[in-house]
């Protein structure tokens, strides 16, 4: 059995974002990067399936981006993936979802992956497109927003999450692509021995030009901070003072404090 998991490295969203010189994405200076949270669930689920099947499945992790993306791949390897593929693209941030999907599909085509796992969206762009577009390009079944996954005798029993806490129960067979929602599992922290082992795992680096020959269908023209709607009061200062001010405001404005 062959498994593929697609991960993206994103900015830590606690960061302060400033537009870059071109004004089309953020300036990477002073920004910390990490694996997209949704993709951590995807890695965990793929590793659990591999473990459940006694380690038999061959599990590849792929990521697209500049040098720094190697860190996200290393984390996935330390979590239990067997081999890494780094599509080296210094300009990945300017690619649109259809191009990212084209790159992944070009790599995966003819490799016979039975299951492809990825996050349901990225934390920084949140288009929720790439997984489904990859499946369409590969011509395989796709299920999005997965919150439960079971594998038995070649059949997937899964649940997808809807609004209001409702879940849809579905069944499908491989080959299939699954986009993972938060809460699907509890992603593991890589242990130190596994981090050391990951350093010895195979890592294939491919230039993006080998996999992509099509242009963008949509471009970001501008990246900017939203205009503050205002109205809200911002309080800063010393704790005791803040407590007194807050209580005074709650008494005056809410009617729930006596």
């Amino acid at each position: 059995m062959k498994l593929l998991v697609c991960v993206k490295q994103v900015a830590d969203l606690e960061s302060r974002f400033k537009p870059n010189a071109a004004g089309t994405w953020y300036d990477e200076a002073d920004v910390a990067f990490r694996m997209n949270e949704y993709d951590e669930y995807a890695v965990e689920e793929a590793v659990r399936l591999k473990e459940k099947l006694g380690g038999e499945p061959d599990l590849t992790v792929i990521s697209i981006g500049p040098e720094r993306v190697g860190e996200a791949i290393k984390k996935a390897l330390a979590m239990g993936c067997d081999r890494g593929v780094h599509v080296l693209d210094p300009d990945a941030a300017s690619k649109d979802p259809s191009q990212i999907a084209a790159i992944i599909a070009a790599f995966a085509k003819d490799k016979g992956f039975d299951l492809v796992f990825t996050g349901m969206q990225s934390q920084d762009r949140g288009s929720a497109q790439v997984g489904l577009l990859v499946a369409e390009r590969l011509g395989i079944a796709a299920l999005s927003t997965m919150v439960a996954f079971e594998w038995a005798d070649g059949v997937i029993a899964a649940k997808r999450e809807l609004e209001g806490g409702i879940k849809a129960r579905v069944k499908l067979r491989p080959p299939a692509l699954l986009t993972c929602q938060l809460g699907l599992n509890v992603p593991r922290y890589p242990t130190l021995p596994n981090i050391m082992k990951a350093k010895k795992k195979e890592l294939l680096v491919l230039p993006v030009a080998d996999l992509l020959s099509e242009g963008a269908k949509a471009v970001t023209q501008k990246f900017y901070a939203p205009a503050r709607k205002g109205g809200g009061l911002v309080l800063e200062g010393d704790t005791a003072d803040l407590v007194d001010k807050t209580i005074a405001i709650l008494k005056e404005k809410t009617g729930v404090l006596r």
Partner: protein
Amino acid sequence: MKVLLVGEYREGKVLDATWELFGYAAKAGAEAVLFLVGDPANPPTCGAKLLLADIAKAGEYNPELHKKLVLDAVAAESPDQVVFCHSSYGWDLAPRVASALEAAQVSEIIGLSDGGFELGSCNAKMRRLVKPSTPKVVVTIQGGAFPAAKPEGSPALSIVSSEAPSRIEFLGYDPPEKKDVDLAKAEIIVSAGRGIGKKDNVAMIAALAKALGGELGASRPVVDAGWVEQSHQVGTTGQTVSPKLYVACGISGAIQHLAGMKKSDFVLAINKDKDAPIGEVADVLVVTDLLQFVPALTAKLAK
């Protein structure tokens, strides 16, 4: 311009989000045609052209057949845009349609500007202006971004049908988990977000809720981490609340959370990040270390 709106239907009802699609069409100044997989015996009353596929045949979740039906509607109507809600139904179906049309998709738009689409980025801290370059464009709209605008009158109804092999078998729904707390009725809710740092600090937030005479709420990451029971979750996939006072502790304000609490009468947010999007809906934003501030506030209230 002409837009094909893809409505939503679940468990015998047309979902209200469908009417927000018409709000988008009005804002875009476009002629609108509605496509819906619904009940032909009971079509929605709306003054628009309606292409209706029978849910009894097409099913509630059958993305491969729904894709085919939407593509048939596109072939018949030649719209410039195909518009979905950015919902579990829309974000699942839209890329399948965009891929078949070789069209650009722009996801979760919040506005129109300068010939392009405005969308949130980086957890709503920033915005992007995106311009597609394909002849047809697929769009998903953020819930609440375009006010619902149900056209008056009765529909010009056409029943449509199609066939497509399906590789996904839909078995049914699991209802939401039973709630041990009904936040919808609470007058005061104090919610914990990821900013509380660790599970041990939930008790501190619960103590503030108790001091205020309110209930404990939580954001999704806190529930996913297992710090607080799912029944306390506020947001799109949890409960929608409108208390007299909502206190958001360490909640950055992801759109899914804001959608569940922005109708609160008064919002007090406590956050160390002055730029956190929760500031957009907060009446008061206290910029501070909540680990110091919350116990101090609780102690003072208890006096």
